[in-house]
């Protein structure tokens, strides 16, 4: 087993991407994800990959689009406002069936919002974010170690489904240092997919990377797309359950806030209040299957660092509207366990 090193979440994401075989990165500075760009500005050359600080997030994502079309394991990173700018390219990646990984180290608020730890982008992350009929797989790690593991998984899922995969990190995980074990390096074969553009011989048919509807599915596009999304929803729901089975109220939280939520479950149980936690690891597909375990639940409560409780609707859908769904939220910080317990208890009245 590899030695543990103390590493910042953002840098761990960057290093893990290289170890997952990525040799292509283009990004733009924005707090609180900039360490990824800074780290790769020197580290990428050491592993013989391509790094560029792009002139904008638009350029960053479109370079990734070109690299993905050429077969590379390509990725880019941003946060809130910059992630918004990437939506054009993510929509094109989805429409073209291209695998790529985009990391959003979330902050808070709309518009400028602020640079502090937050979970402000849930709606954008889980509904597609850009124009048209698409969603992306969204993975939400909650520790520096899980950051590392998630990057490998993200590239694997992107290639399995030929689809962009988003890692929803947040400033809490991104800025934090924790002990981490790094995996070994894996190679990526840029020619592993025949569709990847590389130049064709005179007597070969050309490869055309374009909207999959033009390229392959002019007659069965709706069926093709519906199946693809159904398959992802069926196969890729991921979550962690903690003390759910006998819980009266089940908390639902991901990323940074899920750590505090877990701690809250312990605190509440010491006080005789049966709390549980469902931690979505995939934000899309939302882990609806996890809710079957909550047999004793009388209510659910999301714990999020935003104002409007962006995940509440998904919990209502997952529980078919049969239970009250509360929201323990806070704009500038993760809610305290006391606050979460009070909100959860109020739901039982």
């Amino acid at each position, binding site marked *: 087993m590899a030695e543990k090193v*103390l590493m910042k979440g953002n840098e761990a994401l960057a290093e893990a991407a290289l170890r997952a075989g990525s040799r292509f990165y283009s990004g733009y500075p924005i*707090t*609180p994800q900039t360490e990824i760009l800074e780290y790769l500005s020197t580290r990428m050359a050491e592993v013989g990959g391509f790094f560029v600080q792009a002139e904008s997030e638009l350029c960053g994502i479109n370079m990734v689009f070109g690299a993905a079309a050429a077969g590379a394991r390509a990725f880019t990173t941003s946060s809130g406002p910059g992630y918004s700018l990437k939506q054009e390219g993510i929509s094109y990646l989805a429409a073209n069936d291209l695998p790529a990984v985009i990391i959003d180290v979330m902050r808070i608020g709309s518009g400028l919002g602020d*640079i502090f730890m937050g979970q402000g982008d849930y709606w954008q992350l889980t509904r597609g974010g850009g124009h048209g009929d698409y969603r992306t797989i969204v993975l939400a790690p909650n520790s520096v170690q899980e950051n590392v593991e998630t990057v490998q998984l993200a590239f694997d899922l992107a290639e399995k489904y030929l689809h962009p995969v988003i890692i929803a990190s947040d400033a809490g995980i991104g*800025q*934090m*240092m*924790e*002990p981490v074990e790094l995996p070994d390096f894996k190679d990526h074969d840029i020619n592993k997919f025949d569709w990847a553009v590389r130049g064709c011989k005179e007597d070969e048919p050309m490869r055309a990377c374009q909207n999959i509807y033009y390229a392959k599915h002019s007659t069965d596009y709706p069926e093709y797309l519906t199946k693809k999304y159904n398959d992802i929803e069926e196969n890729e729901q991921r979550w962690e359950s903690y003390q759910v089975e006998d819980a009266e109220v089940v908390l639902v939280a991901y990323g940074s806030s899920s750590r505090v939520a*877990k701690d809250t479950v312990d605190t509440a149980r010491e006080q005789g209040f049966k709390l549980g936690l469902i931690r979505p690891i995939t934000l899309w597909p939302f882990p609806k299957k996890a809710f079957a375990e909550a047999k004793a639940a009388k209510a659910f409560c999301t714990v999020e660092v935003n104002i409007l409780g962006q995940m509440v609707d998904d919990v209502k859908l997952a529980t078919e509207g049969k239970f009250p769904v509360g929201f323990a939220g806070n704009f500038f910080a993760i809610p305290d366990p006391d606050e979460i317990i009070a909100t959860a208890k109020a739901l039982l009245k």
Partner: protein
Amino acid sequence: MIEIRFAGFGGQGVLTTGMVCATAGMDLGKNVTWYPSYGSQMRGGTANCSVKFDDKAIASPFLKNVDILCAMNTPSVDSFQGELKPGAVMFVDSGVVPEDYPVRDDIKVVRVPVNEIAHKAGNPRGANLVMLGAMAAHTDIFTVDEIVKAVEKFFKKKGIDNPKNLECLKLGAEC
């Protein structure tokens, strides 16, 4: 759970001090987190970081009931002594925080002339290490030996070999 805040001017190495401290905790087999101030928090030239040690999994990297504050300047005392829990220990640089500076009366204050000691040791950038040494001596989060080992390892990994760093650490431990 141990909560520690390191604070001072940018360039004084407070973020690095926190990292060394967290590394020491990791080497002792504890769960640790380190969290920096960043962005607009850094404007005005102040920097701080939060370190947590625990045998259990650490939920949040953010501090709430702080056990130890290392304040390298007076703005850090002003900003952060309020979050200390009663009985906490505050380490200050006695060279910049005057003896009559207003501090809480329910905490223990350890005054260390860190800059003076570092200068005398011929390692003016080692003031933070003097502070760390003092912290090892006055608290029970780790022993002086343990922090010496951690610092050696930390700098070795970075390719820095300066025996004066360890000297600063040991001088701090004698304060």
